């Protein structure tokens, strides 16, 4: 781990995003978002509260992530007979969740995009070596023509996400068509991802030296 970056992360409660390039984006941090993060970090949070607050944070990240998708301008007529200059989203998007914890974010995406196609990639770590291995992948057949919202809530090393992005590459998805939706990220993972996939868009709510690795277990109740 680069000590400089760690220091930066300590100086700013949510990390310094300038180090990770223009495609590394942070959710707009309000006191309200800070509260969501705090509840998820707190050891004393009950599982019910944990799910409630996690779903809220996921929803905010998803809504912000959708802003990265393409759209075109369009004019509509309101019920009062007036013109409104609006915009319309373009078709050709899909979601891909990295199992297991990425599945926690599927509902948040589904709540915003009712009929979006969602692929899944299962990645597991070897018990002995802690090396991440792809076990299973199922993605929409025409995924190479789509923008991909890749979902994974916690990044501590960035290795799992790297494996998943490699799977997407194998399916001919262009790197700049991938938008990673993430909740918590370590500086180390942020740097790894920036170095390996500079054209990928990343959205997270926090860069902090310690990742809340209990997320998946607490969310799914397998503690």
């Amino acid at each position, binding site marked *: 781990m680069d000590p400089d970056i760690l220091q930066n992360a300590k100086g700013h409660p949510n990390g310094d995003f300038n180090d990770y390039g223009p495609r590394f984006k942070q959710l707009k941090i309000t006191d309200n978002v800070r509260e969501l993060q705090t509840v998820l970090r707190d050891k*004393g949070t009950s599982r019910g509260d944990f799910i409630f607050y996690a779903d809220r944070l996921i929803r905010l990240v998803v809504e912000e992530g959708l802003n990265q998708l393409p759209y075109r301008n369009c004019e509509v007529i309101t019920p009062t007979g007036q013109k409104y200059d609006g915009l319309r989203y373009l078709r050709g998007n899909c979601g891909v969740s990295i199992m297991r914890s990425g599945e926690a974010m599927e509902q948040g995406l589904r709540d915003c995009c009712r009929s979006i196609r969602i692929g899944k990639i299962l990645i597991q770590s070897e018990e002995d070596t802690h090396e991440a291995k792809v076990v299973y992948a199922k993605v929409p057949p025409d995924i190479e023509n789509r923008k991909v919202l890749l979902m994974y809530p916690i990044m501590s090393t960035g290795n799992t996400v790297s494996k998943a992005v490699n799977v997407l590459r194998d399916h001919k998805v262009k790197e700049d068509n991938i938008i990673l939706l993430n909740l918590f990220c370590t500086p180390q993972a942020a740097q790894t991802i920036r170095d390996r996939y500079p054209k990928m868009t990343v959205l997270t709510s926090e860069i902090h030296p310690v990742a809340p690795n209990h997320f998946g277990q607490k969310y799914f109740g397998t503690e």
Partner: protein
Amino acid sequence: MPEDASSEMSQLIFMRMPPIENKSKMANPFNFDRPSSASSASDSGGSEEHDLEGFNTVASSPPKSPVKVPGCKSPTKAGATKKKSRTTSTSKSSSRAYQSGLRTLYTSGRPPWYDSHGQLSEPFVIGLTGGSASGKTTAARRIIEALDVPWVSLLSMDSFYKVLDESAHEKAMRNEYDFDHPDAFDFNLLISTLKRLKEGKSVEVPIYNFITHNRDKQTKTIYGANVVIFEGILTFVNKELLEMMDMKIFVDTDSDVRLARRLKRDISDRGRDLVGVLKQYNTFVKPSFENYIDQTRTFADIIVPRGGENEVATRLIVLHVHNQLQKRGFKLRSKLASSALNGQPRPDSLYVLETTPQIKGIHTFIRNKDTPRDEFIFYSKRLMRILFEYALSMLPFKPVAVETPQSIDYSGMRLNARKICGVSILRAGETMEQALCEVCKDIRLGKILIQTNSDTGEPELHYLKLPKDIKESHVILMDATVATGAAAMMAIRVLLDHDVPEQNITLTSLLMAESGVHSVAYVYPKVKIVTTAVDKEVNDNFHILPGIGNFGDRYFGTDYS
């Protein structure tokens, strides 16, 4: 919000009073339930008497005699013993409904009680006194009926009897306690209650139980009156009370008539025996009249012989009150729409969500007149959720340190407010409740029904039900759209009248017009205004342009013709 949660709520219902059907009953005051503490009163106990179905006017009732009746019975002796009886007519006709377009209103609402600067007009207080069984209540009812204004509260002195201790209670059971002496009343409470009513605030009136001689646990909330009628045997004996009255009426009825009525009421209606009633009359009632009540007639502006039967006197009183009320009346909405504040820079209290492509895209869906209803509902719900997450970030937060499962300390933030509650302005504001519940766990919800009077164009308050502890809460006030701001201002005024501090109110809305923003911000600068977009104009029908149409109609699907 389940309906039976009313024990937590104060509530009011504005109804027209069932008219008195015929002469013979008019001359028979004991045939009526006493409408003491009428108007917006209701007990907080949540009995089924809150049910609107409980009140029906007779078929012959003209649609315009809007006077409210209590949501519960009076805390009088009668109320304690025969709570369910209701001798006024309750035929099953539905003639009380107003029809305007597709909308039907079953009550008449309260027009604005403040001007476009938020200044309150004091309610007009009528003090009414006279000897026991002199016909005060009948007189009050005749005045209420003839006044023909919807917002009248009746406050009865009977609610303010002191709580009796064990020995006094036993004396009372033997008819030996003097209920007719000034010492029997809690004047301090009475003064503070009337003072708050005068300030337009909501008050909790005790319910006195004449069997236990204690105050019931429940109280009755009285809120919202342009006219307060304060009646009782000793209303004029206290100087402070006298000073609060704008008009003082003494009902003068011959003592023989009063005794005869009292005998009939106590014996046939309350099942007491002749000896006891006479004993009480001679020991307490009569001396009290001679020593206290009779002398207070010198304070009266008007002395009404024969009480409620005196039609000439009633007409004179009503004429005077109408003149006084006209001097205090307000016209709001057109003034607000043409607010000279338009074009001014946006106020500091306004917070508009950043217009990201998503926000703009959602607006495109819900503003498009051709959007089907299921998409309209889906996208407006998404927008509401984003709106509330944004609105929550305006609340006070405090830094905290928490311990994480990774055994490090994490410095974060937690909400620094003890309670939050949501209040929706019906109908359209109700659509936002679900989204609020999705971001605030177990939040309490209140409701306020405000509708526009199609004759005057003014907003009118018809119904409200608020959490009891609302004054300690941060309140998220919800309305889907704010055009002129007239309804929002009325709702804010209601919250202030319930002691919610102005800075604790956040007005949330999907779409606002500039004039509405300015009107609300000008009158209530401490109220935070949070919305997702602000449109420039309001048309002659007070619709926002380009706007979103009638949000409630589109959401609920009541817009086809």
